[in-house]
């Protein structure tokens, strides 16, 4: 039996096409995926992300525990409400999950982890933090709504009567009554993610709908994050890949050198021996759409498409692919027995609602 979020009835009443995702019933789209996608790039859309797992870490040893647990360093976030993105690694440097960690108080942190990895994450976190004075609490009493797009912040400020939200910098959060509002997201647009009590979610959702914020499904969430060059756990990275092979080297804090985070030794070894693979963007012309698993042929050997699809903003096929480090920019994607020329590019494909400058025509 799959679970329903507290917003399930809202989705069904809106005529959403529901699918099972990570054990949850969630909308894949309400009407047109492409229109939902454009609503986020041009105005404001929202996503029910209540399936994501919120974990609170509290206690005198929380900070030291997280400095051991995470490849990024929570000491980089000094301000109350500040957030940091990074990976939780195993001893061999493989990615267990990617997550955002918020510093709520000096001894109180909040993590948001993927629903698909929930059980393993919770077990791992509890085991690794067992020797620290830190209490781990899964917050399954909370819902989460991501409001994204150039007009998203205006809507949330007016809805909540919270002008402070407008002055939040990226990766900062605040508490407004029962609402936890963070200037974060998974679309590449401005916006925020609201964590709120389950019971308040339906009314908040309906008020946002009345304001003209467009409900968007998992389909648009995927096409938006792909355009934004944001990895999806389980596709673009997993236990078999390290952050250094996943375009996430920037999320690994090797400094200070005496911080002994899990996976550090493996990553240092990989770094000194040379990282053999890289995660890049691919842009293609007409002729087909690359999908996960498609073979990528380069001058330095074969790679594989990790995520692929059609970019509504670029109006062309794009993909993320893991290819040999030494590969040049020209590649071939094999699709249904045909060879599609592709060009490797730096991610993201889209920035601030527009194709990134310098993409090949």
């Amino acid at each position, binding site marked *: 039996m799959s679970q329903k979020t507290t917003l399930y009835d809202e989705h069904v009443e809106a005529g959403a096409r529901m699918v099972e995702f990570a054990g949850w019933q969630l909308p894949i*789209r309400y009407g*047109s995926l492409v229109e939902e*996608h454009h609503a986020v790039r041009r105005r404001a859309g929202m996503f029910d992300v209540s399936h994501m797992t919120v974990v609170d870490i509290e206690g005198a040893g929380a900070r030291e525990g997280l400095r051991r647990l995470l490849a990024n360093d929570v000491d980089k976030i000094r301000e109350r409400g500040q957030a940091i993105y990074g990976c939780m690694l195993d001893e061999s440097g493989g990615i267990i999950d990617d997550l955002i960690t918020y510093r709520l108080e000096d001894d109180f942190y909040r993590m948001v982890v993927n629903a698909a990895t929930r059980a393993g994450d919770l077990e791992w976190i509890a085991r690794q933090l067992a020797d620290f004075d830190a209490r781990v609490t899964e917050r399954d009493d909370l819902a989460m709504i991501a409001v994204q797009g150039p007009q998203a912040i205006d809507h949330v400020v007016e809805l909540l009567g919270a002008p402070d939200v407008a002055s939040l910098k990226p990766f900062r959060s605040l508490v407004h009554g029962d609402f936890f509002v963070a200037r974060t997201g998974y679309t590449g647009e401005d916006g925020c993610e609201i964590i709120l009590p389950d019971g308040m979610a339906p009314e908040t959702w309906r008020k946002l709908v009345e304001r003209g914020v467009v409900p968007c499904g998992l389909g648009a969430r995927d096409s938006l994050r792909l355009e934004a060059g944001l990895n999806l756990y389980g596709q673009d990275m997993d236990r078999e890949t390290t952050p250094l092979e996943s375009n996430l080297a920037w999320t690994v804090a090797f400094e200070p050198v005496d911080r002994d985070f899990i996976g550090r030794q493996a990553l240092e070894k990989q770094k000194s021996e040379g990282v053999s693979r890289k995660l890049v963007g691919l842009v293609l012309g007409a002729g*087909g759409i690359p999908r996960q698993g498609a073979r990528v042929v380069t001058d330095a050997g074969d790679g594989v498409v990790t995520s692929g699809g*059609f970019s509504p903003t670029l109006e062309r096929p794009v993909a993320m692919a893991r290819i040999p480090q030494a590969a040049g920019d020209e590649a071939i994607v094999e699709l249904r027995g045909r060879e599609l020329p592709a060009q490797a590019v730096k991610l993201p494909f889209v920035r601030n609602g527009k194709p990134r400058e310098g993409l090949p025509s």
Partner: protein
Amino acid sequence: MSNIPSELRFAETHEWAELLEDGAVRVGVSDHAQEQLGDLVFVELPEQGETITRGEACAVVESVKAASDIYAPITGEVVSVNEALNDSPETVNNDPYGDGWLFTVKPGDDNEIDELMDADAYGEHIEE
């Protein structure tokens, strides 16, 4: 509620077939199918002159999220393909029984189209 024109025949895999005056059969996907597929962004059609076999994949339609095979509703030789879909695949969504047709086939067996479902039977089929 899906639109199901009474003059068309349908395959279980949601293709429609229409017998034209010159004996060729025009093929497309049903309104129900385009709704299930979502916004189409790419269509890969068979080659003109190619022989296609009933029940076998002969074309691909792709949405933002996924690729789906189109199965030949009858056996025959492809006599024309809807080239306009290369530039505007969304026509399949907007007009699945009209400008969104995929290709026409010269049937190997003129009676094969009669083995497909009529509109009533197809209506029941998609209710299931």
